[in-house]
């Protein structure tokens, strides 16, 4: 009953014990083993089996006959398509994905504050620990870009802008005002820098709330956070869309989609919500967060369920318009993905993982309230949205030279273990329940 207050240990702390570390290191070692096996297979196989050659790309790109040497430029990026590129591309996929996941920690907190939501206040430490991974993921992203921009981003090739070069590309030259190295790097640094700055400012408020609460003004940090969150949401809305164009959409330089920013945001958002839910479930299974009951899980489940449908809606809106209009400049994106024997299946796996499973798995009220089902769906969704980024990035960079194997699984597992380690390390730093949050009682007594 709602009006019967219960009492919980408000000072409980997460113990980053050796058992937890062992689990994380097991994932790491498995990931390393997979990555090494995968790498050996790649090197032995000479950078992916190349039967079929460039035939497919030759068809899809060549038949479009863009002005100048468009076909030659997009499809004929012949050099350096080896296992080295595949390593770089894998790091790029995971950096982009995990920057997004950790950023969602801050976004989740921001919308909870702006909505003055009470139910989630007791869970705030989890997204708080998640956004601590942002600086690491950002460094990974920048480092990967520095090493491999030439292999991932076709538009960085200087000869495309040279009128006298046989590679001259009128379309890409037309995008020079936006897609040039200086502006691109400046933009990326602004996104990452401002995001990280916001997480630091948020953390400052949380630390003040925990350790330096002014008894005469106990809501000060709460109101500061509302202002901070409102600012963050505005910047987040603009910057995630632009980051999606820059980091993902510009890989297929000729192609563009007005849905793309939303599509990437939706993918990150669902992945992030599933991560938050999964960490809550793991903590609860470990005997922490006693106050978390079916109602909290139900609300988190509704988030994952609802935004999985949102993601599908965005995905389908992008697909349907391109399919229906049937303009070759646009369809080329899906031809590369659907008609390739390498990636053809991934579009369907993507939809099964990110729509069918969460939709039918979490449809009923009972399913959202059962920890086991929610846990399984969250794992599927996290893997599913990784696959989503995989099929956005891999076909555009490696064309039919890419693939999916032990190496991809291994690198993903290494990132997962690093992510989990940083989350667990930060969870252990502060008490698990933010007891000075003004709305904490609402969360502790949440029932519906």
């Amino acid at each position, binding site marked *: *009953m*709602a*009006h019967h207050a219960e009492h919980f240990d408000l000072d409980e702390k997460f113990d980053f014990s050796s058992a937890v570390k062992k689990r994380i290191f097991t994932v790491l070692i498995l990931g390393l083993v997979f990555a090494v096996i995968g790498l050996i297979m790649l090197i032995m196989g000479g950078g992916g089996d190349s039967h079929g050659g460039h035939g497919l790309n030759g068809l899809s790109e060549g038949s479009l006959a863009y002005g100048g040497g468009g076909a030659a430029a997009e499809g004929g990026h012949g050099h350096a398509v080896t296992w080295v590129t595949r390593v770089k591309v894998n790091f790029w996929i995971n950096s982009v994905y995990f920057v997004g996941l950790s950023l969602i920690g801050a976004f989740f907190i921001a919308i909870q504050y702006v909505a003055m939501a009470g139910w989630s206040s007791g869970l705030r430490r989890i997204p708080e620990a998640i956004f601590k991974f942002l600086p690491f993921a950002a460094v990974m992203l920048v480092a990967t870009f520095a090493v491999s921009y030439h292999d991932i981003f076709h538009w960085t090739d200087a000869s495309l802008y040279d009128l006298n070069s046989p590679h001259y590309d009128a379309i890409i030259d037309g995008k020079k005002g936006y897609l040039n190295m200086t502006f691109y790097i400046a933009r990326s640094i602004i996104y990452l820098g401002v995001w990280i700055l916001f997480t630091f400012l948020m953390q400052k408020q949380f630390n003040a709330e925990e350790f330096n609460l002014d008894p005469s003004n106990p809501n000060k940090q709460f109101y500061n956070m509302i202002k901070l969150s409102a600012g963050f949401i505005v910047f987040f809305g603009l910057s995630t869309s632009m980051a999606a164009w820059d980091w993902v959409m510009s890989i297929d330089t000729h192609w563009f989609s007005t849905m793309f920013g939303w599509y990437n945001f939706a993918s990150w958002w669902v992945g992030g919500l599933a991560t938050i839910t999964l960490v809550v479930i793991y903590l609860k299974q470990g005997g922490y967060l006693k106050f978390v009951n079916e109602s909290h899980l139900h609300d988190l489940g509704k988030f994952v369920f609802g935004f999985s449908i949102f993601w599908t809606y965005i995905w389908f809106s992008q*697909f*349907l318009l391109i399919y*229906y*209009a*049937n303009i070759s400049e646009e369809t080329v994106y899906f031809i590369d993905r659907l008609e390739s024997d390498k990636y053809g299946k991934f579009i369907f796996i993507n939809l099964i993982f990110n729509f069918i499973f969460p939709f039918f798995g979490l*449809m009923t009220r009972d399913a959202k309230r059962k920890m086991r089902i929610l846990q399984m769906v969250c794992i599927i969704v996290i893997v599913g949205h990784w696959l989503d980024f995989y099929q956005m990035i891999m076909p555009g960079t490696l064309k039919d030279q890419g693939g999916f194997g032990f190496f991809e699984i291994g690198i993903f597992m290494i990132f997962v273990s690093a992510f989990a380690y940083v989350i667990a390390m930060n969870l252990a730093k502060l008490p698990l329940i933010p007891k000075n949050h003004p709305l904490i009682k609402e969360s502790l007594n949440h029932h519906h």
Partner: protein
Amino acid sequence: MATAHHNAETDKHYLLGIYNDEDVLLDAVEHVRKKGVKIYEVFTPYPIHGLEHALGYKRSFMPRAAFAFGALGNICAILLQTTIMGIDWPMIIGGKSFIAIPNFIPVIFECTVLFAAFGMVGTFLVTNSLYPHKVPRIFDRRSTDDKHIVAIDLAKNTLSEAEIRNILIESGVEKHTSADGTEHVGIKQRNFTDEENKGSFIRYLADLIANGVTSSNRAIKTSK
């Protein structure tokens, strides 16, 4: 089993317990049920959190109805479009095949939502016998204003009326003293006329079919 206590004069008699406060009401409902009294229904001016648990209601079947109607809408939309576009009048549109599933999805989606929504509204109205021109059985007008009313069907209870009255008084029904010093307890009897009691959708439809739109099924009657 019930015949031992069955009392002809309590037929169609309802006993109403009238409460001022929702917290008192929640505890009272639990108390009354614990004493073995079967509650017919509780009427409140606004939704009360936890009342359905206190009354021991089972989960509503509405979500399942929604799924069933949604699935029906889904199938109907697929059949409609494949029949028209694929079999009855095949047309080439935009170079697509006759049965181009992606094109159908928006309509499939809309029909699923439409059927689920209308189906749920219909199911809700029929299960609650809320249909046009239904004669409402209003137990006590104050349940739309400031009082919570617990209605108990005496015919469905094995306890005698006096016992139930005592249980209601124990549970904390409202009390007030009038100017002349007599004490009033918030317990009331309520009887309905035969016409008020015959609320059946089937009967309404039968009446409509047999007599057309006549004064008998058009009249909106209010109690008193």
